């Protein structure tokens, strides 16, 4: 199991090896049904649950691609993970996760 943190270390663990940058990304488009609901919601305002789900699924996918890359290196943790989102085209968004793969052991 790869451990993830958003900070520069893993609390209670010691970093013994650095493997450098690992990253994962995915591009998702909204689907028509969700878009229809969303355009209705655009009138009255409020949370677009379909999009919230879509984006968090996509973010999980990007994270798991990053984790796979870290596993290939033989790492057991990814530290300083960052997320970024960019919209590449109308109706599509790219979710990007990156971090530093390391090997840690208990202190």
């Amino acid at each position: 199991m790869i451990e993830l943190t958003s900070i520069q270390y893993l609390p209670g663990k010691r970093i013994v090896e650095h493997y450098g940058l690992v990253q994962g990304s995915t591009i998702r488009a909204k689907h028509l049904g969700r878009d229809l609901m969303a355009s209705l919601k655009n009138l009255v305002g409020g949370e677009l649950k379909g999009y919230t789900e879509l984006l968090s699924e996509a973010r999980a996918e990007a994270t798991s691609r990053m984790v796979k890359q870290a596993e290939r290196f033989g790492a057991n943790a990814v530290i300083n993970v960052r997320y970024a989102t960019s919209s590449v085209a109308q109706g599509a968004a790219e979710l990007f996760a990156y971090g530093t793969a390391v090997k840690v052991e208990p202190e």
Partner: protein
Amino acid sequence: MNLDFIIFISLMVLGYTAGSLAERGHFKSLIRREDATMKQPVVTFEDGYELPAGAKFRKSTLVSGSVVISIDYFKRFLASLRFLVGGRVGAYESLLDRARREAILRMKYQAGGADIILGMRVETSTIGGRRKNNKGLGSVEAVAYGTAVWVDEISPQIT
């Protein structure tokens, strides 16, 4: 009367009533949940967290929360007027405020029971509309993430 005008007015009224009702409800629920999770500390710094004497780190994990919120028809119109003259766009301020606070709360819920959340970051992005005439930002996504840390007391206090 012009049909377009009637549609416009009814959308404005619908947007205004439904939008402000939803917003008021959301702010009320935000305050209630923020009070309930007040004991859960969230910080943006990464190091410098000192463990209580005799305590040990148990585990840490990445936690995140996200939300996509859309603005209503009335406020979008209000904002488009504001874009003509410039200045503070109050309509979007409250939208972003709601999105960020909701995302942070969801992150806190995911971390339920953690002793502290370190190195919290908030990211905001807009989701582009499909239609060309979708001016301004229609909806905004906020994601909050950080490292939840659980601490073990080595010598539990006897009371």
